[in-house]
C-alpha cells in the first residue's frame, strides 16, 4: 500500500507515476552557500545536457507573503510555523517540483523538509508530529549536505547580510546578545542537521572549505548519480525490449545487463513506475 517514493502516504489524489526527472536537494544551515552553489550548478548541468529548474524554501506563490508578514508580526509559534512551512513546501512540490520531474528535468531544491524538521524541533514542536506533516513529500533521489561548524559560519554571516533575527534564534530566547544567540542557535541547528544526515544517509560535503572545492565535490556526486541513473534507465529500456524484438544482439545485451545486476541499482522511482 505504501508508496516508497514518498516519506509517508503521499498524495493519493494525484497521479505521480512516471516521474522521469531527478530530485536533488542541497541542505545545510544559513550562510553555508547553498544558493551560490546552486547558481553554479545550473549552467554546468545545462552544458552537460540536462534541463534544470531550482526551487527555494518559503518561496511559494501561495505563501511567500504570508510567511514574511507572520514573521514580521511575531504571531507565529512552533505549531503555526511548522504548518506554514509544510503548506509552502506542498505548494512548491505540487506546482513546481512534480511537474518538472514529470517533464524529465533535474530539480535542484535549496533546502527540503529536513530544514523544517531541524528548525521545528528547536522551536519546540513535537518531532513526531512535525515529521508526520510531511507524509506527502517525495523522497529525494540525492541529498547533498553542506556541513560547516559555527566558527566558519561567523565570518560568512558578518560579511554577508549580517546576523538576522531568525537566523540568530532570538525568538527562542537563547539570550539578548545577538552574536551569542547566533552561535548558540546555529550550533544546535547544525547538530540537528548532522543527526538527520546520519538517519537519512545524506551525502556530506565539507563546506568549511572553499566554494570551489564544494562546487567540485557537488559536481562529482551529481555527475555520478546522473550517470548511474542513465545507465539504469537504459538497461531497463533494453530489458523491456527483447520479447517482441527480432534483434538478437539486443536480447544478449539485455540479458547481460540483467545478469550483472545493473537493474537493481535503478532508483525506487523507476521501479515503482513499472
Amino acid at each position, binding site marked *: 500500500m505504501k508508496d516508497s517514493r514518498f516519506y509517508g502516504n503521499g498524495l493519493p489524489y494525484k497521479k505521480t507515476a512516471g516521474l522521469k526527472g531527478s530530485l536533488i536537494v542541497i541542505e545545510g544551515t544559513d550562510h553555508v552557500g547553498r544558493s551560490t552553489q546552486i547558481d553554479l550548478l545550473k549552467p554546468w548541468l545545462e552544458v552537460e545536457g540536462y534541463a534544470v529548474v531550482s526551487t527555494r524554501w518559503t518561496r511559494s*506563490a501561495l505563501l511567500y507573503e504570508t510567511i514574511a508578514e507572520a514573521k514580521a508580526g511575531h504571531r507565529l509559534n512552533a505549531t503555526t510555523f511548522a504548518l506554514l512551512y509544510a503548506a509552502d513546501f506542498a505548494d512548491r512540490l505540487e506546482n513546481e517540483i512534480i511537474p518538472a520531474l514529470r517533464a524529465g528535468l533535474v530539480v535542484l531544491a535549496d533546502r527540503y523538509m529536513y530544514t523544517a524538521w531541524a528548525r521545528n524541533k528547536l522551536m519546540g514542536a513535537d518531532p513526531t*508530529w512535525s515529521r508526520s506533516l510531511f507524509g506527502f513529500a517525495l523522497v529525494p533521489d540525492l541529498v547533498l549536505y553542506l556541513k560547516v561548524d559555527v566558527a566558519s559560519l561567523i565570518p560568512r554571516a558578518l560579511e554577508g547580510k549580517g546576523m538576522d533575527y531568525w537566523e540568530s534564534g532570538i525568538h527562542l530566547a537563547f539570550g539578548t546578545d545577538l552574536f551569542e544567540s547566533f552561535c548558540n542557535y546555529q550550533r544546535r541547528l547544525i547538530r540537528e542537521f548532522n543527526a538527520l544526515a546520519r538517519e537519512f544517509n545524506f551525502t556530506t560535503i565539507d563546506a568549511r572549505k572553499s566554494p570551489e572545492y564544494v562546487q567540485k565535490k557537488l559536481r562529482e556526486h551529481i555527475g555520478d548519480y546522473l550517470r548511474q541513473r542513465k545507465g539504469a534507465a537504459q538497461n531497463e529500456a533494453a530489458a523491456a525490449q527483447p520479447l517482441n524484438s527480432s534483434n538478437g544482439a539486443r536480447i544478449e545485451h539485455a540479458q547481460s545487463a540483467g545478469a550483472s545486476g545493473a537493474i537493481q541499482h535503478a532508483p525506487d522511482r523507476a521501479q515503482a513506475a513499472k
Partner: protein
Amino acid sequence: MTGLYERHPYPGKLIVVEGIDGSGKSTQLRLIHRWLEAAGYRVFFTEWNSSELVRRAIRRGKKKGLLTPTTFSLLHAADFADRLIYQIMPPLKGGMIVLADRYAYTAFTRDVARGVDPQWVREVYSIAPRPDLALYFRVPIEASLERVLTGRQKLKYYEAGMDLRLANEATESFRIFQSRILELYDALTHEFDLKVIDAVRDIDEQQQVVRQLVMDVIRGVEPKKPYERQSLLRQRPAVQKNGRA
C-alpha cells in the same frame, strides 16, 4: 500525540458543532451562546477559517485557483492552530466554556473528500484537544441545498467542491461533494463519539435536545458572580465573531 482520542485535563469545557453547509449548526450554536451568557457563564466563541494569520493566503489561493487538496488542508490547519493557541487553549485552561463552529472533524470530512490521506490529516490535527461535547447536525443533502440556496441563491465554488471537477454545474457538484462528506461524517460519529442531532426537526426542538446535552457537560463550571456580569456586559457584545473584528 493522541489529543482527539483522550479526554483533556483542563478545567474548562470545549463544545463544538459539526455538519455540512446548511445543516443549521451555526444557528444552534448561536442559541447556545446566548443561553449560556444569559445564565452568567464566561463563553468564548471561535469559528472555522477566521484567523488573521492565513486569511489572505486562503483568499488569494481560492481566487486564483492555486489551492491543491494538500495546501487547502494545511492552510486550514494553520488557521486552526492559530485559533487553538490564541482563542481556544487560554479560556479552556482558565476554566471557561469555548464554543467552536466546526472543528478538526470538518477537516477529516472535507479534506478527505478532496482526496488527502485520512491518516495524514488525523496526524496533522493531533495537536487538537478532544472536545467535551461534539454535536453533529445530520441533514439530508436536499434539505441542506434548499437552505443554502434560499439563503444566498448561489453556491460557493469550494463549498460545492467545484475544484474537484465532479460536475459542470454547481448544484450537481454540491450534491456529489456534500454526499461524500455526509458519508464521512457518519463514519466519524463512531470514531470520535459525535452526538448526532436530527437537523431536520424544528429549530426549537433541536435546541431543547442540545441544551440538555450541554447542561450535562458544563456541570461544575462556575458562572460569573453577579457583580462581574453587569460590568462585563457593558464592555462586550453578547455574540462576537472572534478574529474578524
